[in-house]
């Protein structure tokens, strides 16, 4: 069913297009007949609801869609049917000014909560998006740079959240102490899990990480004495700003945030404070991975992604290189998990299902593997859209799944995939080389 040449010199070949669309509609009829046409009643009983119109609509939609695609592609030259050269050029041009873009982005985001229009919901949503941006950047190290498909990233997020919570509650440690500890524990967890399995082929690795993700969740659910089982743990304290608490009525001898600054108490202060914490964490993740990409280790990640056999022939230890990416990715998930726990005030296993891993992966894949900007855009679209358009929320995962397939078919490197070289001969690294150009 090659659609490349629907148009000869004689104009539109309606016959071919109709035949093609008709075939597609026939397939759609087979697929839709039972699942669209009949709705099972919930529970037992065998009651059925017949809805023939659904089938008709589905088949008609496929017919029209297929015909439209055929027409649209037919009007273009076969070679450029799927590629979008102008888009590529635009992305490339934007990538040249990456630093500027990022500075602008972080600045804009940083002043967002201070604007008069910012209300609690807005700050809260912005925080949520930043959590996913951070997770996306973390996973990008593993998937985008090192090319290791990790389907159980949420396990490290969970390990971070639970380590943080348990440390904070049992040892009464502050957020700023627990955060690095939780990150370190998550990284350690990543290294321990990764060590035996990182020599596996890419697709086996994906399934095994998926298994690890599920195992982690099952263990959390069943190890009730430690984790509180499916009830989870509540009463996680909010971090303090150099000892200043965000509370309307501080304990005796303590000064609350609003008292210290002599402003009336506002619930939004805490949210804004949390927002800045995640903003800083995300910024750190970004700077770290951008920096790593320019170091030998980061180049080794990319080399291994491109060709493992050639990498080995150059003396790169594949297990060590993969392990470092896996462990560092896990560390950032651990940080994000800690933040998640403290923001929610409670945690339970239902926050750490495979769907979470899938969403984070979708953010990385749709934005463009290895692309830092892509992650931001994808996180904004994938997280904000369902929150703002509630009707859409129901279709969210359906569209995620469909979009992942579509992106792989049309633009496998992701929407905003454009690789900027980590070093250029023209602009050698800082210092040393400037004078030596030919």
């Amino acid at each position, binding site marked *: 069913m090659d659609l490349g040449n629907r148009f000869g010199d004689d104009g539109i070949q309606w016959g071919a297009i109709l035949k093609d669309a008709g075939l597609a509609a026939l397939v759609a009829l087979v*697929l839709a007949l039972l*699942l669209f046409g009949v709705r099972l009643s919930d529970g037992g009983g*065998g009651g059925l609801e017949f809805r023939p119109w659904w089938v008709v609509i589905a088949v008609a939609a496929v017919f029209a869609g297929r015909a439209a695609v055929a027409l649209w592609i037919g009007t273009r030259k076969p070679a450029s049917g799927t590629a979008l050269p102008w888009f590529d050029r635009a992305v490339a041009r934007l990538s040249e000014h990456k630093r500027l873009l990022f500075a602008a982005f972080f600045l804009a985001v940083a002043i967002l909560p201070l604007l008069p229009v910012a209300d609690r919901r807005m700050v809260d949503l912005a925080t949520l998006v930043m959590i996913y941006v951070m997770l996306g950047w973390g996973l990008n190290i593993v998937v985008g740079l090192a090319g290791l*498909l990790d*389907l159980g990233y949420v396990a490290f997020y969970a390990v971070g959240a639970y380590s943080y919570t348990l440390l904070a509650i049992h040892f009464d440690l502050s957020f700023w102490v627990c955060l690095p500890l939780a990150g370190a524990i998550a990284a350690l967890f990543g290294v321990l899990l990764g060590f035996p399995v990182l020599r596996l082929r890419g697709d086996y690795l994906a399934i095994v990480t998926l298994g*690890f993700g599920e195992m982690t969740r099952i263990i959390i659910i*069943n190890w009730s004495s430690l984790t509180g089982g499916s009830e989870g743990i509540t009463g996680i304290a909010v971090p303090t700003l150099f000892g200043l608490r965000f509370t309307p009525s501080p304990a005796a001898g303590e000064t609350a945030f609003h008292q210290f600054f002599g402003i009336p108490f506002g619930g939004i202060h805490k949210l804004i404070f949390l927002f800045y914490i995640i903003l800083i964490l995300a910024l750190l993740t970004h700077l770290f991975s951008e920096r790593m990409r320019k170091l030998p280790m980061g180049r080794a990640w990319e080399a291994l992604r491109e060709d493992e056999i050639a990498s080995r022939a150059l003396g790169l230890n594949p297990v060590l290189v993969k392990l470092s990416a896996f462990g560092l990715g896990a560390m950032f998930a651990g940080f994000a998990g800690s933040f998640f726990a403290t923001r929610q005030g409670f945690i339970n296993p239902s926050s750490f299902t495979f769907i979470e891993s899938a969403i984070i992966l979708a953010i990385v894949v749709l934005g463009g593997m290895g692309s830092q900007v892509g992650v931001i855009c994808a996180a904004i679209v994938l997280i904000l859209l369902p929150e703002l358009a509630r009707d859409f929320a129901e279709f969210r995962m359906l569209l995620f799944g469909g979009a992942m397939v579509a992106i792989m*078919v049309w633009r496998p490197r992701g929407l905003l995939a454009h690789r900027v070289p980590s070093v250029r001969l023209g602009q050698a690294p800082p210092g040393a080389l400037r004078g030596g150009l030919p």
Partner: protein
Amino acid sequence: MEYFLQQLINGLTLGAVYGLIAIGYTMVYGIIGMINFAHGEIYMIGSFIALICFSILGLSGVASVPLAILVVLLVTVLFTAAYGWAVERLAYRPLRGSFRLAPLISAIGMSIFLQNYVQLLQGARVKAMAPMVTGGFVVTERAGFQVTLSYMQIIIMALTLILMAGFSQLISRTALGRAQRACEQDQKMAALSGIDVDRTVSLTFLLGAGLAAVAGVMTTLHYGVIDFFIGFLVGLKAFTAAVLGGIGSLPGAMLGGILIGLVEAFWAAYFAAEYKDVAAFSILVLVLVFRPTGLLGQPEVEKV
């Protein structure tokens, strides 16, 4: 001893189902070298189609149980196979020759899509069916504990055996089997020697989906409860079975399925039922780390 025997029977039944699904993974892997992550979802769709068919037959007053099962089997296999075909056509075929992770990511996307597709169309709540085939033999009985082998379990095992036998014949004797084996060895050479690779791959997906559909019909009849999420875990375990048996090997898939079924049944019976899924995953990891070729698989030689 009686308890052990009962678990053995239950485990074998479960294993037969895993084995049927595992064949789909193994065949697809053999021919195009990818893990068809959405295969578990195909099984789930098969279960839904089966339940819909049973309900329609129930409403139209078909009284003969064997006839009903036969009709449902046929219809379900056909309709589910269409899904298998469509998935390959839409999500995998355009990706041949794309970069390494592309088919896998596409498969994961497809899996998420199909889960939510069924959830939206049929609702998130559990669907159930009254048992159609009841009764069975009492194998032995002692101290009030009966070891039963239900008719349904007999049907499942017998059908699995028949299908396995048929499949071995198909692969070793027919032109399709030869084409499949040729494509496994070298797609380019197969194409050059006149084999329609696209068609062979499509047929492989059709067959795999057909077997998953049979598994769907059987579990719907036997366990009677389904929802849109069942494909995830069952798919993962069937994949484990395929790996355990040696991915690419048909008898291996069946053997792996039965072993996984037994492990699950015994683990749940003698150890901690809540950790039975962990047991299956642990087997997956252990096999991949220590014996990646599985029990009956051929070693893969790295092409440099």
